[in-house]
Each structure stands twice: as structure tokens, then as C-alpha cells.
């Protein structure tokens, strides 16, 4: 018998029923919800007179709309200045109260970005199926779980039935061997992967990230990589369980304890692809050659090493791609063949479900220490991913280091990653951002996003333009 991949094992363990027409019912262990993609799902439940199948599988928190300034946060939901945002956050509170769902409300110390609080509370565990109405749910795949984003109709479906109607995806292995150079981070690895396979390269696949680079990576780093699987088109990204995973999970609030812990660990150790497992596609990348990355365009695949120059559409023969480069250059206000290090930075955003965990804050603080944000930079902000990350960073004095360098230290939330709250770019402004999407208008109307690692973002803040953090 041929071996199984990690994805095959997770799929098989959750298969409730395989139907004749090729679809399957997959059981969902954990459902994380937030304010933006759930109001219509709750409304659907009410209209049909249905109730959640298992309220104890659901964990809620508001994150997309919440303000991040200390002042606006001080009086909780009532203090949200944008009336439309306030209604959305209140609606989540009301729905959770009505159905008896655990919610970390706006000023609860455990509140944070959905994909940060899942792993850090132990609500998300290895071997689970995890869904959330947000495409970056694959973040949880770092635990050795099958995690992916779903739409609002599916949110309602999972609440009502504890299952998802799915079709098995294909298996892809992205293998990055070797050792990363100094100053090269998990963010650079995932951006380099997207540059290699393209923004649709993983469409239809569940991707496992394997190889020495991921074995050596921290859990936070693995989460950064899995988080951006969707930017390569893959709904789900995952990393096999090893001792790093088990050490991370142990002792967290909702992690199993006592005898359950021992049984759980024994079962989690099998969450690796078998030696003879067959993948439909394998991509191999030499980790030692990956450089710090900066995106220049309006798709995450439009990314280059910091030492490169902006592409020239004249060198592209495919007409659709050529038009794409021309449009991206125009939107981004860049010239063909311009050096990436000559792009000025107006704002800096360190945060988002991609890079707002403790090691990201530490990396930014390390660069910021003893330096100052350049005068030409209008704003540089650091937004921790959760109340827990914030408390941990403050205990280490990282907030003081960042503030001394001229960074703003904010309250947790999605913030300027998608600019649903007040944190946004002005028209035409360039931003060094640790988030995940550089789409047109993503961080504000007319805003220009450049995706980078936390260290590269902090370095750009200090210099006022992009710079190779290794040369700082």
C-alpha cells in the first residue's frame, strides 16, 4: 500500500461520508469566527430556525473593524467612532450572547486577530480541522492541522451541521532545503515561494511545507509561511508535527492536560507524511539562496530580492502579463528598471495575521533599538496580534524600544492590513508593510503596499526607503 501524505491523513480522519458524486462530508473540529463574515450566517440560521450543532467548537473575536488607538479603544464597543463598524462588532457580540458562543470581546485581554488567538490559546491544535470565514485560516496549518478559509454560506453550513461539503484537493509538497542566511526570515521564504510558483500556483492543492528550513523554523515562522499559502492560490498550507510543535502547544489554555495530553501527543506524532507518500506536485527551492524580499507590484507574486530592480514590461512577451506589469507600475508610481532601494517609504505597518506575533515584534525592536524613524516617514506603527502578544512584548520592554525610536505602539487588531478601521494609507502613499496582500486599494484608497518582513519594515522606517536589513 502506498503511503499517505499529512493532508491525506487529516482528510481521512475527518471523513464523515464520501458521496457517490465525488463530494464528501468533512467534520470540523474548530470554527473561529469574527464580525465581518458572520452576520449573514447567523441571520440565515435564525431564518431557518436552526441552532449551532456544537457551540463548544466555536470561538469568536472581533478583529477586522476594531480601532487600535488606546483612546478609541478605551470605552470598548461604544467607543468605536465609525458607526457602521460599531454595528458590525455589536452584532457579533449579540449573536454570540444569543447562541452561547465563547467570545473574546473587544477589550478582553485575550482578544486579537483570529489567526493569532487560535494557536496561542490552544483552541487550535494539531490534527484538527479548522475553518474560519477568512482566507488566512491556513495559518493554523503550522500546527499540523487542516485549516482553511470558507465563505459566509459555509460558515452557516458549518455552524448548522459541524461539517463542510468538500472535495479532496490534490497534494503539493514545497520543499525548502538548506539553511537561511542571516537576516532572511520566514516571510522572505514564503514571498520567494510565491514568486516561484505564482499567485495561482497552488490553486486546487493542499500544500505541505517540508524540508530543513521549516524543521529549523519556530512555530511563529511556520505560521507566517502557512498564512500566505492562499497568496500562492492554496486554500490550505501545513507543516508536519515535530517536537517544536508539541513544545509550542504544551500548557496553553485549551490544550489537553494530564492523560489526555499523553494520548494527544502520541496521536500527533503520526501527523507527518509517510516516507513513500506520493505528491501530485513537488517544488524544490534552495533555502540558502533566498534573499530579503520586497514586493513592487499589485499581486503578491510581483516580488523581488531587495537588491533587484523593478521589472521592465518590454522584457515580457506574454501580452496579458505585460499589460499586468504596465498597470502595476502605473498604479504603484514606479519606473521600469528602478532600483527597489530607491523607493521611498511614507508609512510603515508592522502587524497583521502574517507578522504580529512575539518574534515579529522582537525582530522589529531589534532593528529599531538605538535608531530613529526617518523624518520623511509620516507614520510607523506596530500593531500586536493579540492582547497576549502585547502583554508579552511589554513585559520584555519592546514597546518602550519601539516608541523611543518613533514607532506608535497600538492595541491588537487587523488594522492597516486591510484598513477596515481608521488605520489606512493616503492616496499614492508607499507603505512598507508586513501584511499579506499588495492589491490595489488594499491598505487604503490609492495606497501602495510593499510586502516585507518585520525586520525589513523596521529598516525601511529608519532609512525612509527600502534597504537591505543586512547592510544596516
Amino acid at each position, binding site marked *: 500500500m502506498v503511503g499517505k501524505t499529512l493532508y491525506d491523513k487529516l482528510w481521512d480522519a475527518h471523513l*464523515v*461520508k464520501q458521496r457517490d*458524486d*465525488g*463530494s464528501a*462530508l468533512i*467534520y470540523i473540529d474548530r470554527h473561529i469566527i469574527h464580525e*465581518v*463574515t458572520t*452576520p*449573514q450566517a447567523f*441571520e440565515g440560521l435564525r431564518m*431557518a430556525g436552526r441552532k449551532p450543532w456544537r*457551540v*463548544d467548537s*466555536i470561538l469568536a473575536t472581533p478583529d*477586522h473593524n476594531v480601532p487600535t488607538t488606546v483612546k478609541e479603544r478605551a470605552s470598548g464597543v461604544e467607543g468605536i467612532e465609525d458607526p*457602521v463598524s460599531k*454595528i458590525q462588532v455589536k*452584532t457579533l457580540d449579540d449573536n454570540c450572547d444569543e447562541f*452561547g458562543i*465563547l*467570545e473574546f470581546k473587544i477589550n478582553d485581554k485575550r482578544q486579537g486577530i483570529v489567526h493569532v488567538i487560535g494557536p496561542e490559546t490552544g483552541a487550535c*491544535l494539531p490534527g484538527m480541522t479548522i475553518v474560519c*470565514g*477568512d*482566507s488566512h485560516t491556513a495559518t493554523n496549518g503550522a500546527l499540523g492541522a487542516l485549516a482553511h*478559509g*470558507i*465563505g*459566509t454560506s*459555509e460558515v452557516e*453550513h458549518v455552524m*448548522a*451541521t*459541524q461539517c463542510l*461539503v468538500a472535495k479532496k484537493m490534490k497534494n503539493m509538497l514545497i520543499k525548502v532545503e538548506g539553511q537561511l542566511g542571516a537576516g532572511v526570515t520566514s516571510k522572505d521564504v514564503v514571498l520567494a515561494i510565491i514568486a516561484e510558483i505564482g*499567485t*495561482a500556483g497552488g*490553486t*486546487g492543492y493542499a500544500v505541505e511545507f517540508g524540508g530543513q528550513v521549516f524543521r529549523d523554523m519556530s512555530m511563529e515562522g511556520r505560521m507566517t509561511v502557512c498564512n500566505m499559502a492562499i497568496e500562492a*492560490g492554496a*486554500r490550505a498550507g501545513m507543516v508536519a508535527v515535530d517536537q517544536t510543535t508539541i513544545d509550542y502547544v504544551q500548557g496553553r489554555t485549551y*490544550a*489537553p492536560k494530564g492523560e*489526555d*495530553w499523553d*494520548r*494527544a501527543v502520541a*496521536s500527533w506524532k503520526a501527523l507527518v507524511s509517510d516516507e513513500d507518500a506520493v505528491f501530485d506536485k513537488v517544488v524544490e527551492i534552495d533555502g540558502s539562496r533566498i534573499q530579503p524580499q520586497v514586493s513592487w507590484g499589485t*499581486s503578491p507574486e510581483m516580488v523581488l530580492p531587495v537588491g533587484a530592480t523593478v521589472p521592465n514590461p518590454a522584457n515580457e512577451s506574454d501580452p*496579458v502579463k505585460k499589460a*499586468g506589469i504596465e498597470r502595476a507600475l502605473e498604479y504603484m508610481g514606479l519606473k521600469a528598471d528602478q532600483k527597489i532601494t530607491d523607493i521611498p517609504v511614507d508609512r510603515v505597518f508592522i502587524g497583521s495575521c502574517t507578522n504580529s506575533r512575539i518574534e515579529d515584534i522582537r525582530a522589529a525592536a531589534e532593528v529599531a533599538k538605538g535608531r530613529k524613524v526617518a523624518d520623511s516617514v509620516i507614520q510607523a506603527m506596530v500593531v500586536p496580534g493579540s492582547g497576549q502578544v502585547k502583554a508579552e512584548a511589554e513585559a520584555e520592554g519592546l514597546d518602550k524600544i519601539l516608541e523611543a525610536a518613533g514607532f506608535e505602539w497600538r492595541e491588537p487588531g487587523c488594522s492597516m492590513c*486591510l*484598513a477596515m478601521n481608521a488605520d489606512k494609507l493616503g492616496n499614492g502613499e508607499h507603505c512598507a508593510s508586513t501584511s499579506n496582500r499588495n*492589491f*490595489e*486599494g*488594499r491598505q487604503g*484608497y490609492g495606497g501602495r503596499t510593499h510586502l516585507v518582513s518585520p525586520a525589513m519594515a523596521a529598516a525601511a522606517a529608519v532609512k525612509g526607503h527600502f534597504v537591505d536589513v543586512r547592510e544596516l
Partner: protein
Amino acid sequence: MKSFTQLKGIAAPMDRANVDTDMIIPKNFLKSIKRTGFGKNLFDEIRYLDEGIPDQDCSGRPLNQEFPLNFPRYQGAKVLLARENFGCGSSREHAPWALDDYGFRAIIAPSYADIFYNNSFKNGLLPIILSAETVDQLFNEMYATEGYELAIDLEAQTVTTPSGESFQFDIDEFRKHCLLNGLDDIALTLREADAIRAYEERRKQEAPWLFGAVVPE
């Protein structure tokens, strides 16, 4: 769910690869707690010349006259012609809601992002996949012919051009069945409630830590 059987309607272009969900419906409009009313903000940032505000009356806003959906010839379009990887990015179902609310009932493209593809079916919006060459041909014919209409037959899985040329498309059996009959998938799944409960009982023995941990204090 809304059913889909046959459709004949004007085709309109979205002639770019990798059209993302932020472009289809920008985030400022996701604050609504309703499923309807997103059509006026479909492609907001490229359709209008100013910045949109939720709930505003869009009838007086300056239109981008270079954006095809603003051309008189594409008014009332029901079929959107698009390029590779349409709907990439976020999981927001507001994207198909906006396309549907605007009046589109079908999209034709060489490929889609997975989540968008899935979300479309839940809303009676049919995302059809045809080869890049065929899509290119349809774009060219549409540009050359004002009032270019495509006929779509889901049962037969065909797209037919005004000249009578017909193209076959593939679709999952399950999705086709649900869409043709406008079936509610929650009701369908709940027919399997016994199988779900049996699975849960078995899992509670195998992995008890997966149950009961997360509840309000």
C-alpha cells in the same frame, strides 16, 4: 438557494488577469450586515473616479468613462468575461453577492481562485471554466460585436455564441445538481445527521480533547 438552468444575456469584459476580491468589492463595503445592496459598489475603485463611502447614493458619483462596465453597450450585461485566476484573495462572499446584485448570473474565465469559485455556487452564480484560447476568442468576438449575447445551458453544459458555435464546459456533478434545483445544502447535509453523530461518538473515544473545551465561563 437560487437555481440556475438556462441564461441568455449580454457579455461584458473584465479584461485583466488575477482580479482580486478587494477589486471586486473593496473592504469599506464589507461592514454591512446584509447580503444585498453590494451591486452599486461592484468594482468600486475602478468604476468611479472618487472614493466610495458605504451606504451612499452612487447615482451622482463621477464615473470612470474608460471602464467597460460604464459603456452603454454593456448595460444590462448578465455574463462577465474574465481572465486567469479570477476572484483571488480573500474569502469574502461579498464578492459573489456584489456580482449577483449587479445583475451578473454567470462568469466565464480560464480559471478561478478556489474560495471564490466555491462561494459563487452558493449564490446561484455560475462560474464557467473554458480554455484560455476559447476565452480569448469570446473576448475578441465580444469586442467586435455590439450587443454580443451568450447563451448558457447548465443541463447541457454548453456556452453558445451568437453565430451558433457551442463550447462544452465541465462542472462537478454535485454542484450542478444543487444549482439546477436550487437546493439548500444545509438541509441536504442534515439528512446525514445520523452519520455525523456516529462519527462524533467514535471521535470522542479516540480523541476526547477535541470536544467540550471552549465555552463561555
